[in-house]
């Protein structure tokens, strides 16, 4: 009977196409919209992603990764004095204005890393060498920044062309020269503009001698030391706040800097709401479209199910047939939909815009939603078939 149920489903190619299109479209919509949403939201914890270290230590009042409340330089030595710490390096972050050679101003995120070890340096440099950062007045900018701060000229065809910054170009930060010695590949940030890396000591010049510049400390645990336990020990010993740098935003751990940043933006800004409504609309449209198409499929087959029922098929058999059809259609639609979503996603990731992060949770939630829609449609169909009078089959 289940084979026949499947044959019933696959028999009508036009209806199957419509059904699968509906389900696939909604799966696509759900997966793609939420992935882009979480992609954009993941920009909030870009610093944690770009500046790589197992543990971050901050002022106890810091709530999220874009929030710099500088500490005293001697705090670095206090952290280094905590048992289980392998090393600790200073880190400065601040939002500054960069003045381009054409006189334009651009907001940048200045990151000062330890010149001795380059702990926290970008992982991939597309141009230049990290060691050149030890030369005077040098910086490394990210590719986005190189593009954003590039020179706009008129091309041969009269169109505006952006010539991105390259190694050797300069700009100014607080009237101090910043000479580019490298271009790095890092993730874009939600706030604060492109990343400009320089050495920790030099940020004191660029920030015009800010009273304190130690925004964060990057800490590596000794081999075999659990980062979470080390965080607790650092907090107990120094009174500072220690975070893990994992980007699992779904965890319950309040140690994760990325997770806290994510949810901080969620709670404290209107961003999730404005983006979220679009996502929710996508979800509703998806649910409505797939529910509607599947329901109409059930309705069209109601007559035949009534006949099968009259011929002596029990409701159990019919219910299972409907469920087999629903879940088959649901799974197929889901597979096709997320297949399309991931294809679009890969293209987006390739381009870098807009951001796209398909969490496993998105995958499973989409699956659950599509199957849920299928299940609800099937249940409605089952109720319909159970209510239908077997005698109706005698009335034309």
């Amino acid at each position: 009977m289940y084979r026949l149920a499947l044959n019933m489903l696959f028999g009508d190619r036009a209806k199957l196409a419509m059904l699968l299109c509906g389900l696939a479209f909604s799966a696509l919509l759900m997966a793609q919209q939420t992935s882009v949403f979480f992609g954009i939201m993941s920009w909030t914890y870009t610093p944690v992603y770009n500046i790589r270290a197992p543990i971050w230590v901050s002022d106890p009042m810091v709530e999220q990764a874009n929030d710099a409340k500088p500490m005293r330089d001697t705090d670095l030595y206090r952290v280094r004095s905590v048992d289980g710490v392998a090393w600790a390096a200073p880190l400065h972050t601040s939002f500054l204005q960069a003045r381009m050679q054409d006189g334009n101003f651009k907001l940048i995120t200045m990151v000062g890393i330890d010149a001795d070890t380059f702990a926290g340096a970008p992982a991939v440099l597309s141009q230049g060498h990290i060691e050149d950062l030890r030369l005077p007045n040098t910086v490394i900018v990210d590719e986005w920044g190189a593009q954003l701060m590039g020179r706009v000229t008129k091309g041969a065809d009269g169109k505006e062309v952006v010539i991105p910054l390259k190694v050797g170009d300069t700009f100014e930060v607080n009237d101090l020269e910043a000479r580019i010695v490298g271009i790095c590949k890092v993730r874009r940030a939600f706030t604060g503009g492109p990343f400009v890396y320089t050495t920790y000591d030099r940020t004191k010049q660029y920030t015009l001698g800010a009273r304190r510049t130690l925004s964060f400390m990057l800490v590596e645990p000794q081999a075999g030391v659990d980062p979470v336990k080390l965080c607790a020990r650092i907090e107990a010993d120094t009174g500072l706040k220690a975070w893990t740098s994992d980007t699992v935003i779904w965890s319950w751990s309040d140690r994760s800097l990325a997770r806290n940043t994510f949810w901080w933006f969620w709670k404290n800004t209107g961003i999730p709401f404005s983006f979220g409504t679009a996502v929710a609309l996508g979800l509703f449209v998806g649910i409505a479209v797939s529910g509607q198409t599947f329901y109409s499929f059930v309705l069209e087959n109601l007559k035949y199910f009534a006949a099968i029922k009259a011929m002596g098929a029990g409701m159990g058999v019919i219910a299972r047939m409907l469920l087999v059809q629903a879940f088959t259609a649901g799974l197929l639609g889901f597979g096709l939909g997320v297949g399309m979503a991931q294809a679009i996603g890969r293209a987006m990731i390739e381009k870098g815009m807009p951001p796209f992060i398909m969490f496993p949770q998105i995958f499973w939630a989409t699956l659950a939603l599509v199957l849920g829609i299928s299940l609800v449609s099937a249940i409605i169909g089952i109720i319909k078939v159970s209510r239908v009078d077997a005698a109706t089959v005698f009335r034309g």
Partner: protein
Amino acid sequence: MFQKRYLLVALAIAGAAAALQLTRGTATETPTNPPAYPPATRDKDGLIAAAGLVEAVAENTLLGSPTSGTVLKVHVKVWDQVKAGDAIITLDDRDLTAQLQVQLASVTAAEATAERAEDAAQRWTGLKDSGAVSAGDLLGYQVAAKEARARVALAKAQVAQTKVMLDRLVVRSPIDATVLQVSVRVGEFVAAGLKAPVVLGDISRLQIRCDLDEQLAPRMSAGLSAKGYLKGESGRVGSESRAIPLKFVRIEPYVIPKVSLTGGSAERVDTRVLQVIYQFDRPSDRPIFVGQQMDIYIDTTSNVPRK
């Protein structure tokens, strides 16, 4: 039709599999990449960290000038070995030299006057009994001679004073040392006691002055051994082999406001530090310079009794 159906199923499975694979790709773990140069790594528990500054054992002598004046000559350059008493800088002495000439002339003049007065006094003293001179006049001649002698002494004293003042214009090394820094040039004006134009130090043996955050002070005690890591050396030498063993010297009894060690010119004092002095032997394989920064790890588990 069957094949098409399976194609559809295969397509769906492929789509889901690719999506699942992508979810793995959008990593939830932050990839960490180790620092380009391995930092000084703690390898055991019970260590406390401090910032250290390399200085000469006898501490550095910030040589000042006792008088103000324009620099006439700088006798040394950095790295020069000087003995105690060697001239370091000479200030402009032209006014005193001129004054000396005048004073020397007035000594000569005073001596001539004194000679004449003495001669007269002697002569009239010889004729005292002849009655050719009254007792009062004779006394007058004798006092005049005495006065003239005193004038000579005064003029000589003035010459001596000027000579001392001239000598003070030459700043001399009080110790045997190496010239570490010369921050004055010929022709510059040096104010008395304001700025040390020359820094001297005995750099045959170096020591480390460690700034220990006052909150770490309770964990510090005398005699603890330590290791130092020179800044800027990471990567060039292996993390362990670049550790410099340090010997405890003393703890400074007075907790002072922190002085910037990080090079930031505008850094202000906002904490107090306990200073601890450590000594080390110059490693043979690399140069170490006075003023270099060091990361210090003090081993609180190594409570060696003090000598």
